[in-house]
Structures are given as C-alpha cells and as structure tokens.
C-alpha cells in the first residue's frame, strides 16, 4: 500500500489592469488603409456613436489610404486640402494598406503683431 497521496489542484491567477476609457478613443484623426479590418463607413458609424457630430470622414483617392477621419475643429482651423496634403505626405511613408493609424494632431497658432504706439 502506497503512503503517497495523489494531489491534484487547478488554480487560476487573475491579473487586472484598470484605466480610464478615453472618449473618443480615436483622438484627433484616424487614417484608414484600403484593406484595413475596419472600413471608413464602420469608422464613421463608430465616431458618430461615440462623439456625435464631432468627426468628418474624408474619402481619399490614394493607392494605400482609403479615408481619413478627422476632428471637425481641425477643419475649422485649417484648410482641408492643405491639411490632407500634410497628413498624406507624413502618413504614406509608414502606413500599409491593411493598417489603421491613430494620430494626435494639435494646431498651435503663433501670432506676432506690430502696432503703432499712441
């Protein structure tokens, strides 16, 4: 007769990380690749559901980039064509057609005026 006891145990370890959910999660801009797992219409619907009337979807005629989702306030500060030109120039170097890029875009306006003294 064996003195050894058969021991069997199953245990699970939980690891929990909690942080605040950013609303909206897409910051200022999303750049959507042509073969990305999420398409422009899905992105537009997501943005509309999370932050109604705050984002605009711009379809692109580009081999890799299908569309760009942009915060409306940015378009109020800068011309759309100029903004898109810069976005494309910078993002097309790193994006593949299956990617969605998230971008933070801040515009700081610096002004210097000269006025006549009284």
């Amino acid at each position, binding site marked *: 007769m064996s003195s050894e006891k058969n021991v069997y145990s199953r245990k699970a370890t939980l690891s929990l990380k909690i942080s605040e959910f950013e609303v909206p999660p897409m910051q200022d801009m999303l750049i959507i690749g042509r*073969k990305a*797992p*999420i*398409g422009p*219409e*899905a992105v537009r*619907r997501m943005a509309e559901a999370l932050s109604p009337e705050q984002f605009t979807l711009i379809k692109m005629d580009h081999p890799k980039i299908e569309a760009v989702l942009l915060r409306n306030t940015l378009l109020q500060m800068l011309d759309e064509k100029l903004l898109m030109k810069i976005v494309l120039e910078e993002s097309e170097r790193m994006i593949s057609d*299956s990617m969605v890029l998230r971008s933070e875009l801040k515009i700081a306006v610096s002004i210097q005026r000269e006025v006549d003294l009284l």
Partner: protein
Amino acid sequence: MTISEIMTTSVSTITSGKSVSYAAEQMNECNTRWLVVIDHGVVMGVVTSRDVLSAHPNRIVADAMSGYPSRFSADLNVWEAHSYLQEDNGEVALIMDGERLIGVLTKEAVRMKIAEFIDPLTGLYEAPYIQYVGEQFLKENIPFHLLFIDLNDFGQINKKHGHPFGDDVIRRYSSVLASLASEKGDHLCRYAGDEFVMISTAEEDQVQKGIALLTQPTHIRNVRISAAVGHVNGYEEPDFFSYSLRDLMEKASLESSAAKLQNDYPTFAT
C-alpha cells in the same frame, strides 16, 4: 421581351452593419452570389461574392459594397437592359416598383437571354435585335439608313457547291458585313437565310461607300459572290417616322429585289 421574364424574384437580403464574414456565410447558406443590402426597409445596394472576397472579413457590409447598382423597372426591354449593363461594372441590377424592390436582374441572366438571339453560324444577332433597334429609333424620332442585303443566287450556290460551302459563304460574307458595321451607330443582324439587315446612323457618303462595297462581286474559293442591297434613307424619306419598322423593312426588301433584277453580274460563275 421584358426583363420581368428573366429577373429573380427570390431575393436574399442583409443589413449593412453585418460583417463581411457573415455575408459570406449567408451567401453559402442561400446558395447565391449576391445579397441585397437593406437598412430599415431602404435598399442601400448589393454586396456580391466578389466584394466579399476582396474585403477584410471583419469589415462591415457597408464598407464592402462596390458602387451602387442600376435600378430598372420590370417592363424594361431586355436589349435595353443589356446595353445599360454593358456600361455598368456591377454584376446585378435592382428591379424596382417605385421604391419597392421586386427583384434582381443578373448580368448573367441577360447574357443568356441575349445569347438565344445570336445566330450560331455567323455570331451576328438575329432579327429580333434589329426589330428592337429600329422600333426604338422610330419611337425616339432618330432617322437612320435601313439596308436590306440579300445574297444573289444563294440557292443555286448551295445546289452546285453543297450546303457546307453555302455556310462558308454566309460566314465569310457576314464577317465582311461585321467589319463594315464596326461604327457605334451601326447595327447588324442576320435576318434570315442569306438576308442581312443593317441599321446605320452614319453619314450618307459612308453608307453609299458601304453599299458599293457590298454590291461589288467578290470571290470565295473561286466562286463569284454578289449581293443586292435595298436602301431606305431615313434622312430623306418623306414621312419616315409615320412608317412602322415592318413597312420600312418591306420597302427595303422590295428595293433589294428590284436591284437583284437589275443585276448585271452573271448569276454565279466558278
């Protein structure tokens, strides 16, 4: 011959928010290559198996649909649908009764119907095609030249050289005709046996050159072949639009018979 005869009334549908992979499963289940996309009763478009294959499976259907399909009413003529769909990249068109979807028309169904009217010997359209084109032009008050082309002594050619040779003559002559009717405004059919009909909106001098070429005897394997051409000029014919196409065909056919009687060329010679 309207598209109501060939449209599919059993239509499988999907909503635009479903995933592409779900659309693929639905297509498999319903044994179809397309699904009509409907959101809240409104037709949004069509997603096809080609769309599904080229899109990421995680995408929603709204992001996979390619373009917007043509919309036709069920009483549209098949020939007209064929010409519209030739310029359309889509595989299917929606058949609507006002805003209500009543069926779907596939390019394949149209092609199969049209193929029934293609003469197997020459590859040219048969008479119903020219009937449609002529009636359409008359309806829209578009003048045209109507040519009735009849090979001379074709019966005797068949008797002397055999029917297979007769078939060769028809094939060769129809390819000459097809090369003449290459302009966009030209429509050609093998009307019956050794008779062909061409409708053309080309300039008068171009048509006359064509007639001269068609009536000029040619040789096929040393057998002289010629044709008589009856010509109705819709640009000069008084009250052209008061005639039916049948009247105009009769007129052109009689002119071709008269030209045959005046034919100076020997019946046929080897």
